[in-house]
């Protein structure tokens, strides 16, 4: 007789396989979700004294432009900026994780602080582990700051756990529309040494304008963050696209080839 009450009433192990007690404590099964409220592209470009990022202030609910005051560039610690596109509630969760990370890192006050490369590695681990559980954080994230050797740092990580680094990076629609424009001024590693802050800013403003023209889920109001290799972080808010021309809209009838 089996004296263990937890085994009474169970099917035979030799016929149905050994019972896995983890079933008893398992949470709901979560699989690939759909993002609900989303942010569109985040752009970034390295320049001679740091990195500059831009992201608009729109949080869309499908095709509805639901919230126009959503800040998507996050300052982390003293010298790092994280830009997030994709699901906004997952972005807020990431913000929470990063806030806790910095708080705990500061407990010791021992002169050791987490910087951009460390935060990037941490987020990469989080994103990849979530994807491996088939329960991703539905985002594409850019991490900007400075490396240990003093040069600018820029890294990308997304919902699949894919990571890469380049002088210019953009997520979402920006990957198709903005990257070619940014690569006109910085195409290879090392090119950033020749770019000034003004040039970087001009390139980003141009790209945000192009995206507002062509990305149907974008907004003309955005924020620009600058992270310098001296360790200064500034986030300029409420920047608006300038000198746009919408006169072509006058001639449009219907969609596609319709002319009347």
């Amino acid at each position, binding site marked *: 007789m089996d004296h263990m009450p937890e085994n009474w009433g169970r099917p035979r192990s030799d016929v149905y396989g050994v019972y896995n007690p983890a079933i008893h404590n398992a949470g709901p099964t979560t699989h690939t979700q759909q993002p609900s409220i989303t942010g569109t592209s985040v752009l970034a470009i390295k320049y001679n004294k740091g990195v500059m990022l831009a992201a608009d202030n729109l949080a869309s609910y499908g095709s509805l432009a639901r919230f126009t005051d959503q800040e998507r560039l996050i300052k982390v610690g003293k010298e790092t900026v994280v830009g997030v596109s994709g699901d906004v509630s997952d972005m807020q969760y990431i913000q929470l994780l990063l806030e806790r990370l910095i708080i705990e890192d500061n407990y*010791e006050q*021992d*002169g*050791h602080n*987490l910087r951009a*490369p*460390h935060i*990037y*590695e*941490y987020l990469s*681990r989080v994103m990849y582990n979530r994807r491996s559980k088939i329960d991703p954080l539905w985002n594409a994230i850019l991490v900007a700051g400075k490396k240990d050797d003093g040069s600018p740092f820029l890294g990308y990580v997304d919902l699949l756990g894919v990571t890469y680094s380049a002088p210019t990076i953009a997520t979402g629609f920006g990957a198709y529309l903005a990257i070619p424009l940014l690569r006109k001024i910085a195409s290879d590693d090392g090119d950033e040494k020749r770019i000034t802050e003004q040039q970087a800013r001009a390139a980003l403003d141009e790209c945000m304008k192009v995206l507002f023209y062509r990305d149907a889920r974008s907004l003309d109001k955005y924020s620009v963050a600058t992270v310098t290799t001296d360790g200064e972080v500034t986030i300029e808010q409420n920047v608006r696209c300038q000198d746009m021309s919408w006169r072509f809209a006058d001639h449009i009838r219907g969609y596609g080839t319709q002319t009347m």
Partner: protein
Amino acid sequence: MFRNSYDNDSITYSPTGRLFQVEYALEAIKQGSAAVGLVSKTHAVIVALKRSAEELGSYQKKIIRIDDHLGIALAGLSPDARVLSNFMRQQAMSSRMIYNRPIPVSRVVSAIGDKAQRNTQIYGRRPYGVGLLVAGFDETGPHLFEFQPSGTVLEYFGAAIGARSQSARTYLERNFEQFHDASLEDLVLHGLRALRDTLAQDKELLAQNTSIGVVGLDLKFTLYDNDDAREWLEKLGDVGSTRGRQLPDEPEPAATEDAPVTDAPPPEETDTVEPIETDA
């Protein structure tokens, strides 16, 4: 000292506020052979005297590499050191994997300090019976920490643990002002001289019984044993014990006496015959 009625378990205080089991654990460290550590502004060095249980046996490993930037020297129960060093390696690996950075020395040392403290406050557990000298290099420079079974972790310019370590400590106290600006070679030689002072009469530092670990700026943790140790000993020159020689200002150490765990100065040790045991 050995007739206390408050020493049955680690979690009972004596009426004078002492935890005797923790103090007894410190005695275990004094039974192990000596280890010495010191830092300059660019390097951290640990040297240790290895013991063998019998003439035909191997010498107990006294220095363990934890990571590229971290190593430890142990004195006391070496199995306890193994467990702690494996834990430190896990912590170091975790830091590299999650944050892509070498673990700051003070953090890994706090982690084992907390681990050791738990064993002094949970019924049924015994304190770790090993003392460690942790030498490492991180963003804030080279560091030397001393770890004790009580969970106390302190940073030092120079430290010594194990049998007859007071003699080494005396050498370090007399010479520590030279350490800060010393070259790596000078620092190691200071360490070896301090270690030499812990030798019993008529013993000497040999390639087989001396272990040296160094780490610093642009230098990953490197262990020198056997033939590699021989090269350092040749630089040292005189490898024999200074005990029994007529030295005017170095009295023989006095007998052991009781001492509380925390802040009091360490007691001097008895100069007994080395016990026959396999522990370091």
